């Protein structure tokens, strides 16, 4: 069974600085998708970035980028120029077919 591990329950960063959130996963599959979702206190899950496993190029979305290491089964999220609005729970997720597995989340606080 696929499992997703986020080893950092909580992190904090100063506004305008860069922070990296870690995620590892376990799977025997070769083709799959990986995601980072953000869940602010309003509780709605917002898609931050996605990565197809067959693509070697790391995905980027404005200030958000990933470091995808397929062999190491690692999928970290880098947030550049952190903003107060980035404060939220961040969930890493793995998907094969329709079954999406989430990690336990990392609570990120951006400090002014």
């Amino acid at each position, binding site marked *: 069974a696929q499992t*997703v591990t986020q080893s950092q329950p909580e992190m904090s960063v100063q506004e305008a600085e860069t922070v990296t959130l870690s995620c590892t996963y376990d799977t025997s599959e070769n083709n799959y*998708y990986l*995601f980072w*979702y953000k869940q602010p206190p*309003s*509780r*709605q*899950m*917002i*898609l931050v970035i*996605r990565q197809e496993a067959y693509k070697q190029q790391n995905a980027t979305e404005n200030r958000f980028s990933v470091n995808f290491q397929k062999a190491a089964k690692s999928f970290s999220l880098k947030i550049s120029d952190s903003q107060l609005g980035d404060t939220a729970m961040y*969930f890493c*997720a793995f*998907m094969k*077919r*329709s*079954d*999406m*597995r*989430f*990690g*336990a*989340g990392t609570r990120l606080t951006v400090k002014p």
Partner: protein
Amino acid sequence: DAGVTQSPTHLIKTRGQQVTLRCSPKSGHDTVSWYQQALGQGPQFIFQYYEEEERQRGNFPDRFSGHQFPNYSSELNVNALLLGDSALYLCASSSGSHRETQYFGPGTRLLVL
């Protein structure tokens, strides 16, 4: 363009009762997935509906059932409620061409007393 909507936003039930939660997908989406998110945890996949059929199911008992209507909206039903069913229930929608990319609704907070 309306996103994914869910109703009700909050619900309180007692043990043994039955509950129905509702979800309307984002415009243009035809697939609906349901998740349970216990407090302090990541969401867990319950099941997915496409073309009015359950296509895949996570590790949830038969007390959890669903339905999808011709307009792609969906219901989640939970029978014989247990205290442990207290959670945030999230609905997510996606379209056939990019079914792996899901957009979530705001959720329904269910409290079972």
